[in-house]
């Protein structure tokens, strides 16, 4: 979900020129994929091409907004696009996706029960899982020895962690995690509830050393902070350098995101798109993708094909009991309240 723009630009131009060149002569089977930059394993595409003889062209974007804008413009002939969970309902509502009836796919049974029938796409009519991750916080157990099971550790920290804390600088993620800690719904548009969020964050602020969404695992690894809000993949990287770093799954719940394979309404090669989706539902194939992107997938049995350090990493394998909370796209009113909390916090 968090990707860089720099890699995207040259690749897009390359793909465009390739597409232009391939245009009229294309008699062979083709598939056009539009995915986040740096988010598609080249090995998995090569394997797909070899097994099916379908030629794949990959183009990349940097945000859901970019994807939405391009699909709304209506002139992008992609066969597979990979929106995040919160943008799926918007695209369905705007008629930008076509039904794929995933339960009819031969490998549908491989999807973990937990990820079938998700709240953003009941009955998997339009989507199947691609990669998913969580947003929580990590703490250095060399500095703090107590229990690491609650979000209260982050928001009302003990003395040894005060002044030693890093938080994200993105209001949507901070307010979402604070809402989970308070047991409030996501995208709450009740001013009274947001007042509680504001009080929680204002109370925490004197103990926070830095608000930044960049260089997080580096800061934790360097010992610059002893606790930091972090994505699960980044926490794994911090632990690789400093083994005492622990990623926390709070009992109140953990904020999660899921990117999904979907087929746009304007797709030209629908049959090939479905072949690709079915291909990616095989554990041995999605595992190649996980090994590349360092994110979890939603396919049963893929564990066996993961690289050992990824397979055993608690960051990538949350306990089965953990409650995942997916944030939808918030209403204008909820965004306004969130913005007000943020401005008051930093004015």
């Amino acid at each position, binding site marked *: 979900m968090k990707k860089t723009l720099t890699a995207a630009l040259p690749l897009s131009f390359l793909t465009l020129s390739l597409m232009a060149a391939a245009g009229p002569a294309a008699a062979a089977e083709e598939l056009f994929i539009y995915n986040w930059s740096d988010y598609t394993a080249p090995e998995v595409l090569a394997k797909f091409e070899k097994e099916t003889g379908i030629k794949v062209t990959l183009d990349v974007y940097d945000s859901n*907004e970019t994807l*939405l804008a391009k699909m709304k413009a209506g002139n992008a002939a992609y066969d597979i696009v990979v929106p995040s969970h919160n943008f799926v309902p*918007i695209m369905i509502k705007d008629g930008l996706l076509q039904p794929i009836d995933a339960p009819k796919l031969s490998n549908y049974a491989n999807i973990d029960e937990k990820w079938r029938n998700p709240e953003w796409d009941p009955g998997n009519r339009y989507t199947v899982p691609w990669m998913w991750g969580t947003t929580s916080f990590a703490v250095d157990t060399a500095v703090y020895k107590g229990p690491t099971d609650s979000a209260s550790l982050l928001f009302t920290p003990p003395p040894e962690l005060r002044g030693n804390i890093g938080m994200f*600088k*993105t*209001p*949507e993620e901070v307010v979402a995690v604070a809402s989970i800690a308070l047991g409030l719904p996501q995208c709450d548009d009740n*001013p009274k509830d947001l007042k509680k969020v504001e009080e929680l964050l204002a109370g925490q*602020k004197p103990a*926070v*050393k*830095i*608000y*930044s969404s960049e260089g997080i695992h580096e800061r934790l690894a*360097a*010992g*610059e902070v002893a606790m930091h809000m972090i994505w699960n993949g980044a926490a794994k990287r911090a632990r690789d350098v400093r083994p005492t770093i622990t990623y926390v799954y709070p009992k109140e719940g953990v904020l999660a995101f899921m990117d999904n394979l979907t087929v746009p309404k304007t797709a030209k090669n629908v049959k090939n798109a479905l072949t690709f989706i079915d291909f990616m539902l095989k554990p041995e194939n999605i595992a190649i993708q996980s090994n590349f992107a360092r994110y979890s997938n939603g396919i049963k049995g893929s564990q066996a094909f993961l690289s050992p350090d990824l397979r055993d990493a608690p960051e990538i394998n949350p306990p089965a009991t953990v409650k995942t909370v997916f944030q939808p*796209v918030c209403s*204008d009113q909820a*965004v306004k309240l*969130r*913005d*007000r909390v*943020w*401005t*008051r916090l*930093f*004015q």
Partner: protein
Amino acid sequence: MTPHRATLLGIAPTLLIIGVLMVVPMVIMAAYSLMEANSFGGVLPHFSAEAYIKLLFDRDLDDSLAFDPSYMIILWRSLRIAGLATAITLCVGFPVAYFIATRPPEQRTLLIFLITIPFWTNLLIRTYSWVLILRDTGMINTVLQGSGLTDQPLKLLYTEGAILFGLVYTYAPFMVLPLYTSLEKLDFRLVEAARDLYCGPWGALRHVVLPLVMPGLVAGSILVFVPCLGAFVAPDLLGGGKELMISTLIQLQFTSSRNWPFGAALALVLLALVMLTLTVSAARQARAAAEGGH
């Protein structure tokens, strides 16, 4: 070709550059600031003055307006920090420029060359290097603790002091170079004359040197103050994001707040402040020139 047409053709590139690079983006910005925000970023093409109302007032759920000083507080912080950074840069830059201007000519060239060396490296990299130097586990604190001068790391990074330091470090050359240009032209015999007439060193500085280098001083101050006002990198990397600045506030409107019109309105307010600074200083210079004329 008539002389008139030749003139038009001659200034065409200038007009084109001003038009494409300045007028068009500013018209877009002004237009966006007067439209309604779209839910997923961007604007809806309906007229709305909401962005400007939001600068000073908070609209409650029942549509009533209440005065909200949040954005003015943020704006004031940016103005204060930019002003402080300019003052410090002046205090640091003047002796440096004076020193260079009083060296023999061949040394001057070398010294000016040295001043420009930092520009060869990207600003982001230079600022990030200061993060590595100033942080708790960084160079300064390691040396201080290693030599036994301190037993706790000094809190250097993520403070307002760090922001000021970053701004002064970044923009000092913009102060030194115009000051040097003025000082280089200064006839130092005037200073000698002042001293001969029993003027003290401070008096000579105040009554002889400063009035003569005023154009360079004003130019340097503007060159430092204006970019400091909209600075993004130093507050973000060295300040730890604990307080919003006008630049970070604008960035927020175009990302998670999804309020492009308000972001455009804030950018225009910033622009207006810069224009005001320039107009005031131009007026003062014109007055000084008129006074010096008789």
